[in-house]
């Protein structure tokens, strides 16, 4: 015993890292798989819980509205406060949230300006085309202009509040929405 200890005196004690390495490898593989499924730049608001759904439509970036129990946020900027997830009676009566309409109109104008080619944008006031008669065609042209709202709403919100926000977005120019859900 003493002799063997004496013989190994110069050698530092070995640390068994093999099992640790195995564990790290497994964690690394799991995280790489999760990383692959990451959803763009989406930041889920920590104060809300999305509803669960079987919808399989893929996530795409859009103007982000979060309806939390405390407030309505547009791209993570608080626009209007809510009380227990409800707007004021005046806002319900008016059918819109004016602050939200103003904020979204700015986004809508920016998106339209970005979507229009520079030369077309310059000529736009002179060559104002008549509005398309077929709604489908108009929507098809707008399909890729980015004027879509991504709505994060808490699963316990009532429809009245969600619809009020959608309607405010509609008044601002957005008519198509993506409701964010947690996949089952």
């Amino acid at each position, binding site marked *: 015993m003493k002799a063997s200890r004496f013989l190994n005196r110069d050698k530092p004690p*070995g640390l068994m*890292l*093999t099992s640790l*390495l195995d564990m*790290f*490898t497994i*964690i*690394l593989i799991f*995280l*790489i798989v*999760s*990383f692959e*499924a*990451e*959803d763009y730049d*989406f930041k*889920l608001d920590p104060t809300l819980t*999305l*509803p*669960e*759904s*079987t*919808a*399989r*439509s*893929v*996530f*795409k970036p859009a103007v982000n509205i979060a309806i939390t129990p405390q407030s309505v946020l547009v791209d993570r900027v608080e626009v209007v406060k809510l009380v227990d997830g409800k707007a004021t009676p005046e806002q319900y009566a008016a*059918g819109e949230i004016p602050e939200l309409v103003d904020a979204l109109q700015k986004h809508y104008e920016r998106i339209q300006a970005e979507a229009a080619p520079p030369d077309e944008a310059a000529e736009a006031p002179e060559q104002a085309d008549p509005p398309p*008669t077929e*709604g*489908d065609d108009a*929507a*098809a042209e707008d*399909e890729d202009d980015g004027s*879509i709202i*991504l709505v994060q*709403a*808490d*699963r*316990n*919100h*009532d*429809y*009245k509040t*969600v*619809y009020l926000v*959608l*309607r405010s977005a*509609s*008044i601002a120019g957005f*008519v*198509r*929405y*993506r*409701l*964010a*859900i*947690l*996949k089952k």
Partner: protein
Amino acid sequence: MFSRWHQARDEAADINVIPVMNLFMVLIPFLLMGAAFYHIGVIPVSTPTHNPQESDVPKTPTTVSCNVVITKEKVRLTVSSVSLEEEELETLAGEWPVKGDVYPIQPLQDHLKDLKARYPKSTTVIVLPDDDIAYQSLVGVLDAMREFQDGKRPDGEPLYRELFPVTVFSRFIPPPPDEPEEGAEGAEGGEGADGGEGADGADPGAEAPPAPEEEAP
């Protein structure tokens, strides 16, 4: 000779894993920060746009448009079409009570399957929930109306078939107190207060749903 062999064996037994561990220690926190522990999806929906010249009643004879009224007591489905008679539209309608907090998802879906089988090109459903319907309940009903699972693929993955994937949200305008109850229901338009006549029943009026957003494959 023997000592050289012994030395070589000792060296081969000691693989230096410290650099690998260092690499892992850097990689794991980085990946942890970016990992998605939940998977986000979306449900594409729209709101009605007011266009007096347009109606959301489908123009082609082979399509119908469904109107689903969701209350805390019942789910009511009505159908609109330009080519079908009023009596036939009434036979296509349905109503199911809500038992407790459980919405009649399955009978609604079965009914929509029948409708889809009869009018396969139909895609649009106009949803008119009550004001106090919880968002989660609404999403559950939307799931039942959008698609259904129809067996499995050869690779074992579930096979989904489309029902009515184009969802348009609308809302009742409360009837004025001095007007009679009958015919007072209407759907609110998407622009201003001059919305359509009503999305309920066989003639939703001047509410034209926008074109559907593209669906995931």
